[in-house]
């Protein structure tokens, strides 16, 4: 479909590492484990795609990483520094390393500010540069995201959705962060514009060496931009692999169902789609959370929660059927 950049070599030192992270929300209906024991790491200049259905906790995870949501437990390390429980005033310095691009480019930009003011705001907040230097930086950033320099004088409502998302990206890159969390950055855009924004992101990553945590429900988008992909279901990562491995040999039944659900032009035989909805997060199923919809579920799945474990180089999954000690694992790995 798209020509993808070659996979980067895995650098051991990660810019972002998340360790057994849990996020809980207490509501009138009970407690929701929106993120339940997620671990992942991000190498410099790498893109990790995070996919799953709506409500699976992927956005919550992204927001917890930039500390917009307080994690209940676990650890977040940014460029080697533990930022999990830092109070907000101490967090400011760490924020230079991690920035966020939001889904809705209409809602995240103040309609009363000019684009130049908006892009300069992070520099202003962190006291970077003189007025003239900031202005030069804004022009430079506008150029980087493919907007004309005179865009700085206009207000966001004078731009289209795709252009506004470019403004959001410029804003996120202003502080030269090591990690950018992209929360559904192209979901609100037309398909033709999506491709332009994705190309822009890939190009920016190559020239700036920034790492992306790319959150999306759209598999084709994730396939295009990601080096590695994590699949989330009900607050947990059920499979984590590099892109080629995941698309060639998905190990988790949920991943397979997601991949099968991607529309294909060729048509032909397609397995039955997944039945039912995401179970209520207030009352997640016992055992494997996916067993209520899994076509292959058996006794063990209803009682025992599968753990994420390695099944190959850089490939891990949380499924009893992929357990190498189990004789019945063979059909899935094939």
């Amino acid at each position: 479909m798209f020509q993808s950049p070659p996979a980067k070599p895995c650098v051991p030192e990660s810019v972002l590492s998340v360790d057994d992270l849990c996020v809980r929300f207490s509501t009138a209906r009970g407690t929701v484990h929106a993120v339940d024991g997620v671990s992942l790491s991000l190498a410099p200049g790498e893109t990790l795609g995070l996919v799953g259905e709506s409500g699976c906790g992927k956005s919550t995870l992204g927001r917890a990483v930039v500390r917009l949501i307080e994690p209940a437990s676990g650890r977040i390390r940014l460029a080697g520094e533990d930022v999990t429980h830092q109070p907000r005033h101490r967090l400011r310095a760490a924020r230079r390393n991690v920035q966020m691009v939001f889904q809705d480019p209409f809602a995240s930009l103040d309609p009363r500010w000019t684009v130049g003011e908006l892009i300069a705001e992070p520099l202003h907040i962190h006291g970077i540069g003189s007025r003239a230097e900031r202005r030069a930086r804004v022009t430079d950033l506008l150029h980087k995201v493919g907007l004309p320099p005179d865009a700085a004088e206009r207000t966001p409502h004078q731009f289209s959705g795709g252009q506004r998302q470019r403004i959001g990206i410029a804003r996120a890159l202003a502080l030269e962060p090591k990690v950018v969390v992209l929360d559904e950055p192209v979901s609100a855009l037309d398909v033709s514009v999506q491709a332009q924004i994705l190309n822009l992101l890939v190009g920016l990553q190559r020239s700036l060496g920034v790492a992306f945590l790319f959150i999306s429900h759209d598999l084709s988008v994730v396939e295009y931009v990601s080096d590695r992909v994590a699949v989330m279901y009900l607050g947990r990562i059920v499979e984590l692999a590099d892109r080629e491995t995941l698309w060639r040999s998905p190990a988790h039944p949920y991943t397979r169902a997601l991949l099968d659900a991607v529309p294909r032009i060729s048509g032909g035989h397609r397995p039955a789609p997944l039945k039912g909805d995401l179970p209520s997060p207030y009352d997640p199923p016992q055992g494997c959370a996916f067993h209520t919809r899994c076509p292959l579920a058996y006794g063990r799945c209803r009682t025992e929660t599968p753990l994420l474990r390695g099944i190959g180089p850089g490939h891990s999954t949380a499924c009893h059927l992929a357990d190498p000690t189990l004789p019945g694992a063979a059909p899935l790995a094939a």
Partner: protein
Amino acid sequence: MTVFEISAPAAPAPRARDGLLLRLLRQPSAAVGLTLLVLIIAMAASANLVFPDDPLDMVTQPFLWPGEDAAYPLGTDMLGRDIASGIFHGARVSLLIGAVATLVSLVIGVGTGALSGYYGGRLDAVLMRVTELFQTIPPFLFALAIVAILQPSIPTITVAIGITAWPSLARLVRAEVLKLRHGELVQASIALGASDLRIIVLHILPNTLAPVIVSASILVASAILTESSLAFLGLGDPNVVSWGGMVGAGREVLRTDWYVATIPGLAIVTAVLALNLLGDGLNDALNPKEAAR
């Protein structure tokens, strides 16, 4: 890669603020309101020039009907005081008290509403209970009690009106702030590392300005009414002339010389009407959907 998707050749779309006065004047009722208000402000500003003498001085014979003597076009009251002079000087008092009392309300109301809406939780609960406490007491009786306790003077009347009128404003601002608080605009600012103060002052309050301006104009009108009512009941500053006080004084001769109470009454009606028309006009002019046209 760097394809620009310029959809429309950047039309020089006006910034929202530029066209405000124009949009306001395009509505007949708002234009009338604004004209009347400018007139009253001009009266207040020129009072010392047109009527340099104290309006409380007796200048000629009492009960001079309007038009009877060209030197006193609006006549004189039962003590021989010039009513026209009273109207001009009274405009100063009414506008001053109306504006300053509204400013007091704005400070308390916007402050309370912004803190309450932004921080939520326990602070919100406490501030909202305080607001409700103020709301349960009828504002006019409250102001009356305050003025009666602290001798009536312009500062005490202003403060009394100011601290009784803010609760509705606080609720309005809180609701507006709540709408923005968990939106992506604020989330984006937090992610950038902005401080709470910066977010509230630079991003939240400017975006709640439109409804606040509208209710402020209505608050000025109601402050003028409250001040007039207090003065009518004899709780005005005895050292200055005020429209309400003039109505109160004229009440006793209403059967024989009705103009003494009616002329300052009409002044109050005009001022309140002007501010209400302006408020309505601002509401339409500041409405973003209207502005987008």
